[in-house]
């Protein structure tokens, strides 16, 4: 994601990382440049974040996705907030005070239950296109209670229950509820609750169920899938402004 000094998004690009971390980062950078109509030389500061942050050789610095999601969300919601980031591989609950300082965070245990990877696996096992999962769950008015904790055992449980005549939509809704339960087990929510990450970008039902289950108003952040990148861009801007001050330049 590329922003200007006024924090306006100029361009962004999403690329599935795969095994080539450096290559996909380069491709994403080039894609974002193209959309922004910029050349690489016009970019003053680059910050890398996320799982592959250490593999981005053209970035000047790195910062964790925990800090970036916090920074990005606080930009839009400058008050006491809890950021719930539901990503492909992990979930995070991040608490910020009214000044935007992080007061605590939790990442899920070494387990895929409740993450985007869990939903991907379930969609694959149910032979439902990932993009249709949300719509399927919305057809249910009687969510199934999923008993298992483990991703592999959940798949077995779901297939067995379909064989015994339960409705697919009830089970899919139950799977989403299971994701929400895993999130709520991680820690307490306080202040305004903002959800980010790729999962809610394509499965907004998660935010609705989180609200239903927690009894709190839950909002989906703007451009949730790119919130981490936006936060990184804000850090990069701060960095560039610091350099400019030190060098006597204006941005």
């Amino acid at each position, binding site marked *: 994601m590329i922003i200007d000094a006024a924090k306006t998004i100029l361009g962004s690009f999403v690329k599935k990382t795969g095994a080539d971390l450096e290559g996909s980062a380069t491709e994403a950078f080039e894609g974002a440049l193209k959309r922004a109509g910029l050349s690489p030389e016009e970019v003053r500061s680059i910050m890398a974040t996320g799982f592959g942050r250490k593999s981005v050789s053209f970035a000047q610095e790195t910062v*964790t996705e925990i800090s970036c999601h916090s920074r990005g969300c606080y930009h839009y919601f400058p008050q006491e907030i809890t950021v719930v980031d539901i990503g492909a591989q992990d979930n995070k609950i991040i608490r910020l005070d009214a000044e935007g300082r992080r007061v605590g965070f939790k990442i899920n245990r*070494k387990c895929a239950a409740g993450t985007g990877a869990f939903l991907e696996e379930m969609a694959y096992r149910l032979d439902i296109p990932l993009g249709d999962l949300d719509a399927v769950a919305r057809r249910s008015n009687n969510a199934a209670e999923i008993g298992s904790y483990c991703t592999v055992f959940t798949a077995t449980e779901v297939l067995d229950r379909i064989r015994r005549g339960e409705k697919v939509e009830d089970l899919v809704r139950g799977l989403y509820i299971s994701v929400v339960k895993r999130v709520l087990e991680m820690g307490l929510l306080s202040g305004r609750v903002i959800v980010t990450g790729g999962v809610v970008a394509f499965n907004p039902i998660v935010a609705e169920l989180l609200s239903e289950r927690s009894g709190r108003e839950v909002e989906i952040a703007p451009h949730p899938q790119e919130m981490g990148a936006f936060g990184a861009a804000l850090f990069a801007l701060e960095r560039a402004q610091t350099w400019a001050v030190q060098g006597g330049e204006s941005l």
Partner: protein
Amino acid sequence: MSEKGLRRKEIKAAFDLKRVTSDYYYRMDRISRGEEKGKIAWCTSVGPAELLRAFGFELHYPENHGAILGTTRTAMEYIPLANAIGYSPEICSYLTSDIGAYLKGETPLSKVYPGIESLPKPDLLAYNTNQCRDVQEWFEFYGREFQVPVVGINTPRALVEVREIDIASVVRQLMAMIPTLEEVSGERFDIERFKESLSLSRRCSELWGEVLGLAKHLPSPWTFFDGTIHMGPAVCLRGTQEAIDYYEVLKRELKERIEGGVAAVDGERFRLYWEGMPIWGKLRALSEQFSELHASIVVSTYCNSWIFSAFDEKKPFESMARAYTEIFINRAERVKEAYIAKMVREYRVDGIIFHDSRTCPNNSNARYGMPQRLEKRLGLPCLVIDADLNDLRCYSEEQTRTNIEAFVEQLAQTKR
């Protein structure tokens, strides 16, 4: 935002440590082979070492071997072997890695000490359940394998207060061991020898406490990661003069570091507490990451666990019973919480890292709300890392690194 190229600074006393450790293993090997007079007892790490030494036993500590299997990462080869004979992957991974290595007839000591082909064969096994019950079953396994006596102390657990009735129970159990120890060692119990070994152990413990205490200095001359290496004599050689001599050397060097303004972590910016077991297979990687982040782990429950302040040779049985019953791991949550709070103040700590070790519930203190209570009580951030002492299948490299980095980023927001 980290900086590359910062490495752990070697402590020169490590040369002495290597000699002391080498002498210890070769001495046990000679006894085991019948080349030197003596008997071998296997003892738990906070077991009745001083009483055993009073009978002339040389002591092997299976937990120390477990830690070696962890640091060499050979544990990962051996744990499944113990799992396959019915020792669950959910129980102590020291136990499963040590039993697995025994089943395969291997030890990493053979690579480090040429000529040592196996662990010294025990003549007796002695445990204390003050740390957990796994040690009892671990030693019972070897009792069956080697057909040697197993003696043990079943300490009252999870104490709020250490009462006289608790001490009396442990004293009686210590005394009840004596006939077996006499029979196996071939020596009569001599209270003066017992007092002498307790006196040596007390001095070792005091010195160990002093060297750990030097980390109160800003910047700290050494870290938890150094401590996990240099604690060897406090565990395996307490009750001997060698351990005392070693810690005098180490103390001198650390004092010199303080006088010379040498910090273990260059540009020490954050001071942290490590609660729980080390992640043995990742010590170097973690040490380097913390150094890069200018964070020094200055105090830990783990290293402090071999400070036995109650030892008093004038009351050998009572004081030994008290020392081994009042240890941190054997206490109720509220006592543990107060202890950590005290250490946080004394060492001027900025944050606490809890290692929730999958197979070591007894030495994992993030399971009953302690981090949350301490955050509230001390106004300090706490981080919980899910991993294990030896079983690296329970460890996620990326998740742990990100957790630590994000934690230090959080500390940086509040500490200017």
